């Protein structure tokens, strides 16, 4: 379970450009929920995600993950509880490292890194097995540089990286926005499958109204730093994408 209590975020405090993004913001996500978030530019979707990941620290309020207060924790410390897939396939992984090394870094998330050799035969077998589930033929390319993969392949590997280790919440930051429609479908399918298989709690930002309703169990609509619609259950099931557009 993840709770955000009375969160306030103000950028450039005390300067002429001071902007308040969140004021007294509250949100509760139960374990196992798959929440999709939609909203226009500047609605605060990314800020919400960065707040949870630790990239942005709130000015006041608290963030609690399964009874662990992480409000003041920096990103790298929260990483053991939170996994994330970024929007830009180029930014979300390490282009100059091999697929295997990338997976290895993800495998060490939340564990202390020692002077033990990073790569090993048993780990390699484990990675190969995980990659083979995706049917993208990447399991034989463990020694290829990540930079050689297409955007879609990189997002697929990024998804595997994000789910190698357990996490309290998986953050998906418009992770299909940079892909072509075919690849987007594939990645979404993979996302859904992984979340179901591992029974993950997830928060996904999307620009697509239909995606927001088709995927997940709950949909949040944001506007100017507030949740203007919180759709779940029966109400959500009966909604269609065009109804959502009407809310804007």
């Amino acid at each position, binding site marked *: 379970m993840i709770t955000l209590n009375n969160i306030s975020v103000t950028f450039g405090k005390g300067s002429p450009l001071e902007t308040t993004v969140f004021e007294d913001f509250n949100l509760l996500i139960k374990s196992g929920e798959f929440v999709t978030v939609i909203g226009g530019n500047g609605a605060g979707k990314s800020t919400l995600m960065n707040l949870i*990941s*630790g*990239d942005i620290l709130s000015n006041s309020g608290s963030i609690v993950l399964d009874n662990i207060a992480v409000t003041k924790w*920096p*990103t*790298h*410390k929260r*990483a*053991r509880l*939170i*996994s*994330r897939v*970024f929007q830009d396939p180029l*930014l*979300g*992984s*390490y*282009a*100059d*490292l*091999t697929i295997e*090394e990338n997976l*290895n*870094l*993800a495998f*060490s*998330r*939340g*564990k202390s*890194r*020692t*002077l*033990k*050799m*990073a*790569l090993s035969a048993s780990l390699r077998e484990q990675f190969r097995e995980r990659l083979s589930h995706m049917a993208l033929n990447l399991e034989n390319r463990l020694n290829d*540089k990540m930079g050689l993969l*297409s955007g879609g392949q990189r997002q697929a590997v990024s998804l595997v*990286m994000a789910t190698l280790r357990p996490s309290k919440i998986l953050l998906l930051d418009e992770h299909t926005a940079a892909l072509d429609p075919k690849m987007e479908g594939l990645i979404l399918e993979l996302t859904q499958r992984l979340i179901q298989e591992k029974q993950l709690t997830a928060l996904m930002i999307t620009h697509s109204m239909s995606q927001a309703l088709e995927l997940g169990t709950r949909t949040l609509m944001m506007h100017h730093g507030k949740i203007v619609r919180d759709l779940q259950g029966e109400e959500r099931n009966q909604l269609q994408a065009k109804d959502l557009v009407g809310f804007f």
Partner: protein
Amino acid sequence: MNMIQFLGALEIGLLYGLVSLGVYLTFRAINFPDLTVDGTFPLGAAVAATLLVNGVHPILATIAAIFAGGLAGFITGYLHVRWNILGLLAGILTMTALYSVNLRIMGRPNIALLSELTLFSYFKGSHVVLWSMFGIIIGVLYLLYRFLASQFGLALRATGINPRVSPSYGINIGLMTLIGLAASNGLVALAGALFAQAHGFADISLGTGTLITGLASVIVGESLLPKHRLWFVLIACVLGSILYRLAIALALNSQFAGLQAQDLNLITAVLVVIAMLVPKIRQKFTLKPRQNL
């Protein structure tokens, strides 16, 4: 170029191979342009020479030099990580301070090692320094490889490749920067300490051009070996250093160019510029933009 000059270039190339490994650690591995090394090389020499003159065992003196260098690197890192001082500036600040520190340590601008025992006085025979340097370089290469190939080392290299995403995999970028800088400057100080013992003196002006020499070696090395294996990359640094020294020796010994010893820094700078331009020029003229991916 005769045999003596060749072996001399080889020896100094091996010694400065340590510097180039140090520069690789900062400029490449953690992607931090660290200028501290111009101060840490003479620091290593100063610490080792001063301790040797005072009768300290050579191994202890050398280890002390490594730690002094590591501390200097740590200070640069601290200025950057804790107080957000620009990396380049943090390095320059530490380097500037080190000039005074080095003078304080030595008590005078230079120290000659005449009858003192050094690391190299334990062996007998011809080309002792050359062979010892060879052994030391192999040892350092192995340790460095082992370190960079470990879980920790992989995270350290990852920091330099993508600092934006690293925290979300639990990597503490500040810590990696500190460790990388300390290790790099420790290596460079080791080179300084070995230089002092091999050549029998430490001098306040030893550091000039250390960084650019190291960088030149790294760049020369990169153009020699493919980059996709960590082993290759590390060995390339040392090979680059040796080749660089040979090229310099060749340039200075050839009659036609009329080059003299004082032209060394000019040649080095021109070499680095050429090495950096070649890939760009090659790209411009030979590679057609790819149409369909």
